């Protein structure tokens, strides 16, 4: 087992990793920026070392300083958490070259899955359904129309160089295709200096469903069931739950098997999340793989009783998982609300500041993962997540009831948080019925 780990992150995930290491008897080195100097969680690490000023580029994103901190503190490995350097291939490579363990996948697997085109190829090889579309750039509108008729409308035309919605057109029939094709090309050319476009099937009101997978170096690949993360606002997840409330047992199994096949095909080791879109007919399409632990991993921990961070460390230590798929039971329903320092009444603008009154909920079925406390200052340099509130109950209705009472108990003053927004979503009758998709929040609130 690894004996000393540097946690290259901050906030709740740093605390989460320190806790897991502590329970495993592994020493921890925390790194911090000057802005986090007074963070109480730093006292829970065996050593804490300042790596730079508040600005991420000079601290949590600064590879030389983190590697140097790892070298002077003699750690075996670095746990990158999520965000920051967690999916930075360059960082993983430098760790490898410096002989420092990396609690995450190998560089090759990370590179393979980090490239969307390669990942799509791999999925096809593993017989994992992908969103149907053109193999590459469309030569002309005639090719587009032919393909559109093959895969069926609606389709979406996207700029190869694109992003932010520019050079993008949803098309519902042959009549509007040509105009849309030309408009997208023109827009893409103007925006990116590259008019290349491709097309994909447009999934209408999809759910975001992802499968948690964990693999060891001996080739064991286990899944930990799915999470439904359809409650999003501008692609930021707000509420996650497991199981996906609309999936039947056979479909859940097929989804999990697909994710497992893909990860096996990639010769991947450590934790991964395979993300899918689920359409209204409950057909699923692979989107991408996150090659790290996710913010919402506690949802899976609650329903399976497994500690994913400990498993990550175990696998990174070169040990086998020591579990069989049938040992991983899914029990009940878990749900997570992200409590962010954002003002729901002001377009979710970040709301940094000092918390002068703080009372977290407790009692049965409630888990709180947070680095915050009374006196904690939410710093504008970092993301606004201040706590993850997770509940576990026998049924979805009971989980919603527990989440509601826990949110109502949760007191964070005087800064604004997403607590009232989460309460409103939980009270919405479509949410209660499980009839949600990735556009739900934007349509209804």
């Amino acid at each position, binding site marked *: 087992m690894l004996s000393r780990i540097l946690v290259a992150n901050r906030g709740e995930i740093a605390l989460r990793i320190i806790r897991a290491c502590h329970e495993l008897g592994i020493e921890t080195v925390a790194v911090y920026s000057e802005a986090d100097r007074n963070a109480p969680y730093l*006292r829970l690490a065996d*050593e804490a070392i*300042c*790596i730079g000023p508040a600005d991420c580029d000079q601290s949590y994103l600064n590879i030389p300083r983190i590697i140097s*901190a790892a070298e*002077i503190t003699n750690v075996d490995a670095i746990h990158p958490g999520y965000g920051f350097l967690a999916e930075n291939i360059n960082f993983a490579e430098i760790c490898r070259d410096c002989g420092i363990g990396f609690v995450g996948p190998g560089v090759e697997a990370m590179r393979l899955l980090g490239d969307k085109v390669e990942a799509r190829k791999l999925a096809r090889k593993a017989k994992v359904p992908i969103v149907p579309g053109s193999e590459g750039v469309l030569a002309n509108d005639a090719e587009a129309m032919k393909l559109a008729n093959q895969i069926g409308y609606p389709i979406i035309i996207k700029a190869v160089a694109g992003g932010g919605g520019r050079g993008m057109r949803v098309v519902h029939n042959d009549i509007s295709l040509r105009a849309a094709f030309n408009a997208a090309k023109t827009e893409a050319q103007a925006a990116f200096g590259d008019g290349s476009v491709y097309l994909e099937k447009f999934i209408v009101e999809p759910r975001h469903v992802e499968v948690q997978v964990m693999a060891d170096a001996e080739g064991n690949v286990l899944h930990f069931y799915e999470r439904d993360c359809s409650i999003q606002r501008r692609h930021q997840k707000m509420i996650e739950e497991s199981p996906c409330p609309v999936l039947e047992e056979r479909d859940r199994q097929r989804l999990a098997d697909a994710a497992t096949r893909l990860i096996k095909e990639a010769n991947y080791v450590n934790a991964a999340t395979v993300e899918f879109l689920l359409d209204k007919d409950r057909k699923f399409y692979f989107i991408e793989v996150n090659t790290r632990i996710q913010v919402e991993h506690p949802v899976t921990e609650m329903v399976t009783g497994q500690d994913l961070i400990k498993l990550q460390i175990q696998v990174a230590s070169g040990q086998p998982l020591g579990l069989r798929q049938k040992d991983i039971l899914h029990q009940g329903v878990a749900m997570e609300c992200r409590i962010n320092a954002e003002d729901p009444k002001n377009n979710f603008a970040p709301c940094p500041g000092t918390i002068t009154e703080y009372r977290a909920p407790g009692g049965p079925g409630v888990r709180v993962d947070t680095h915050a406390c009374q006196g904690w200052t939410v710093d504008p340099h970092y993301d606004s997540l201040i706590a993850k509130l997770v509940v576990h109950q026998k049924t979805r209705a009971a989980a919603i009831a527990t989440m509601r009472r826990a949110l109502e108990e949760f007191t964070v003053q005087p800064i604004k948080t997403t607590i009232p927004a989460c309460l409103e979503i939980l009270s919405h009758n479509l949410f209660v019925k499980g009839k949600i998709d990735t556009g739900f929040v934007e349509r209804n609130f």
Partner: protein
Amino acid sequence: MAEKDADVQKIKELIKIMKENDLVKIDIRHGEDYVSLQRAQPPQPPTTLGPLFASLPGMGTPIPAPAASGPAPAHAKGEGLLEVRSPIVGTFYVAPSPDSEPYVEIGAHVDPQTVVGIIEAMKVMNEIRAEVSGTIVEKAAANGQAVEYGQVLFRVKPD
């Protein structure tokens, strides 16, 4: 539609009522209908944390006392001295090689460009310059010591 117009009317009235009456918030809910109005709070005096973090229990290794805001040279508290701080994380050496003389000794005069030591980070030797002018009065870090960002390396009496 009529309902929405009525809402606007109602809200206008409510705002008038709020303004006239110095209310800061109104919430109205009928079943699932909900109206909430809130006016800006009067400015609050800044709160201070006071002794909150002063008495943290000593779990794990104690964190070094808060440094000044940056690693740049700073006046050491109450002594009139300047500090030369580490701008990076690494291993500090006082001389270019084990056989060499130290870059500076106590009593040496430095100017901002004077190299006072090197810090090895990722096998790279980084020369550290004084960034201040004055006389070295204290060596605050030992040769071969691991130093964090902002750690004091030397104290300098200004000219």
